């Protein structure tokens, strides 16, 4: 009995010893199956063709990188004393002349805005960026965002134009007090839930107009002198702010059962989408003045803005229509069954769901418009790209276009890349429930 017992125990112990991870330390997989070497083998050198491609690309990338670093940093000239560009010209293209950017960056960013007032457009740029960041955060996606937008856009207008837009409109002290009282009253009433959001928004705009201008006491700067990045941001942001509501109406109209309204909306969308933006901008610059009665004149910037709004409205309408079509029919029918009116159904059931579906494509469309605002160059409006192009017209700085375009390109890229990354993350987040 005893020997048999021992044998069993020995066998048992052997078996226990063979259980992995119990007696022996965990072993890592062989180097050829995991780790950097395996990764390299799988992703860069999986076959002779892949190896050849990798080696060729490494060679090319190394050559380009060295070339670029030499041009942009090693041989570059960063500053020249008072417009003496001979040093830059002697480089003959082997090095970048960043001096043009050092010299002209204020002009490229702010255009012909008065030099000592540059803090105002700079603040406007920051305000725009803050507005984008706030709007991008999902925790702020609520109705009050409209108030924030109204307030920010008012503030931007005040900063750009300045305090004394029209001397007669300078608010009296009693007006300032009234504005403050209205703001506090409306805010309180809104927090208590007595009134809707429209009133505090209006009160905020009024209070900003009454207070910010007089307090900061800024000299007036007319639109003709605005330029650079603020113009690009204004065209893109105001364009979106007005085109978006328009596009919702058009998209609803296109899905409407009323034939006349549907025809009008289809005609609008297809006509606008069939022609290039340039033709609309030309129309804005040479035809709008003919459309208006004598003596009535709209500023060039505003005309371009209207053209961009009409253009963006048509494209956004198609995106919104996609969302409306993606919504299950049952939602419409359920809303009808509840006896909701058309606008209740649309406002409470359809749009909240449909718009949520199309947020990522909306952001992509917005990237497109942000880039398309550069087309106003062709009708001579002073946006970022026009400012860059104008900066090198001066004889001393002619021929340094590449450096200026790289600088302007980096600015455009920062905005568009941020938006594109944001849209990708958002898409992943909103689709999380669909992923397995």
């Amino acid at each position, binding site marked *: 009995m005893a020997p048999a017992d021992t044998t069993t125990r020995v066998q048992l112990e052997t078996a226990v010893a063979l259980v992995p991870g119990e007696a022996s330390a965990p072993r890592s997989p062989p180097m050829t199956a995991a780790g950097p070497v395996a990764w390299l083998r*799988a*992703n*860069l050198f*999986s076959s002779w063709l*892949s190896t050849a*491609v*990798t080696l060729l*690309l*490494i060679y090319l*990338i190394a050559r380009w990188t060295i070339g670029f670093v030499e041009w942009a940093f090693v041989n570059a000239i960063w500053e020249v004393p008072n417009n003496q560009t001979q040093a830059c010209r002697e480089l003959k*293209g082997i090095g970048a002349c960043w001096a043009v950017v050092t010299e002209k960056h204020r002009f490229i960013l702010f255009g012909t805005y008065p030099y000592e007032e540059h803090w105002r457009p700079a603040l406007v740029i920051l305000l725009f960026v803050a507005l984008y960041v706030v709007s991008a955060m999902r925790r702020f996606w609520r109705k009050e965002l409209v108030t924030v937008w109204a307030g920010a856009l008012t503030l931007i207008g005040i900063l750009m134009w300045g305090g004394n837009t029209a001397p007669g409109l300078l608010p009296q002290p009693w007006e300032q007090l009234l504005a403050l009282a209205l703001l506090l009253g409306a805010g309180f009433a809104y927090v208590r839930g007595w009134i809707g959001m429209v009133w505090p928004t209006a009160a905020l705009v009024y209070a900003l107009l009454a207070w910010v201008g007089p307090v900061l006491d800024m000299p007036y700067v007319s639109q003709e002198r605005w330029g650079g990045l603020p113009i690009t941001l204004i065209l893109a942001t105001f364009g979106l702010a007005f085109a978006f509501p328009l596009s919702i109406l058009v998209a609803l109209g296109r899905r409407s*059962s*009323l*034939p*006349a*309204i549907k025809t*009008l909306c289809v005609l609008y969308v297809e*006509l606008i*989408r*069939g*022609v*290039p*933006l*340039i*033709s609309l901008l*030309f*129309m804005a610059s*040479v*035809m709008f*003045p*003919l*459309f*208006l*009665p*004598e003596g009535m004149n709209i500023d060039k910037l505003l005309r371009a803005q209207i053209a961009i709004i009409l253009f963006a409205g048509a494209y956004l309408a198609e995106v919104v229509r996609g969302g409306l079509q993606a919504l299950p029919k049952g939602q419409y029918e359920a809303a009808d069954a509840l006896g909701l009116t058309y606008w209740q159904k649309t406002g409470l059931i359809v749009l909240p769901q449909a718009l949520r579906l199309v947020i990522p494509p909306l952001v992509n469309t917005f*990237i497109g418009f942000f*880039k*398309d605002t*550069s*087309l106003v*160059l*062709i009708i001579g409006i002073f946006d970022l*790209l026009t400012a860059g*192009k104008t900066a090198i017209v001066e004889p001393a700085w002619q*021929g340094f*276009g*590449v450096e200026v*375009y790289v600088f*302007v*390109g980096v600015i*455009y*890229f920062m905005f*568009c*890349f941020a938006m*594109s990354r944001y849209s990708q993350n958002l898409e992943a987040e909103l689709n999380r429930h669909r992923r397995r």
Partner: protein
Amino acid sequence: MSDATTDDPRHLRAPPRRPIRLSWSDERVRGLVWQVLVVGVVVAIVWWLVRNTAHNLEVRRIATGFGFLGREAGLPIGEHVIDYSPTDTYARALLVGVLNTLKVSVIGIVLATIIGTAIGIARLSRNWLLARLASVYVEVIRDLPLLLQLLFWYTILQGLPGPRQALNPVDGVYLSNRGLKLPWIEWQGAHTAALLALLAGVAGAWLYARWARARQMADGRPRRVWPAAVLLVVGLPLAVWAAMGAPWTVDRPVLRGFNFTGGLTVSPEFFALLVGLVTYTAAFIAEIVRAGILAVNQGQWEAAQALGLRHGQVLRLIVLPQALRVIVPPMTSQYLNLTKNSSLAVAIGYQDIVSIANTTLNQTGQAIEGIAIIMAVYLTISLSISAFMNWYNARIALVER
């Protein structure tokens, strides 16, 4: 037994027609009122604008109508596909502009499709470096305005050395600030005939393939198409060319004085526009192609391999037809975008329809007619491309039972 529902007498009757009540609670009355209201407002606005315009034109003594088309244009055009001189009429100048737009669009669409497809496939490559490089390209190009890119390319081309120090990457090819110079054959009647023969050959090959397919459907035996196709597409033009004496004189660009003579010239404006449009659109096409290929289920690859098809066959017979269904609609809008974006030519001085119409309206002062011409041209091109692509899409769309 027939379907129960058709027998049911209740379904044979049309729903009762409610008489229209003149009340706000009647849906049809509401709809009618809204439509009349909206159409009324639109008509009123349009009428107001037209009246203003008519008045303004009268006050400013601007002529109306398209009478100017028959007048002498007097505007020089650097590049023209058809014969043109400044003494020709505005109508001919505008036609030259349309042809220039079509030229850059067609060449751009072909090149962007090829390059975009290659980059899209490269993004899916198992080679990490290649895939990363392709995605960096796509991201950077898509995040920069096209106009900026065009100005950038144009600046680079203008910064090239003059003809005397022209870059000479391959024998006979010169790149200078006057544009790109390529060797070209001296065009003769035989070449035109060969080109026509090529077109006829393509049409013949297509008809033969159709016939072979119809026969296969009828008797089930597959027929080889490629020998006849090669004969028709390659053999026929060669035979025609050889029959007409096989003329072959290469016209090489030669530096004479301050510029090149001979050869084929690609102007810096056209070159910059083409490079800009192609690189820009290729980035968008790459994304479309990638999405299309990814949309084909992995099971389709595996099933096709299980049937014993080779890699190329799987791609050609199984994956591509399914991917195309996803690719074609967005590709259409990219082609339309490229065509519309070619209007940015005006910024770098390539004389397309927008540029020439713009000059025309500046010379004649007839803004409305000029812009109407631009819009009409683009609407026609857009509608033609989308009609063609819709037809193609319908052909390759999923045929469901």
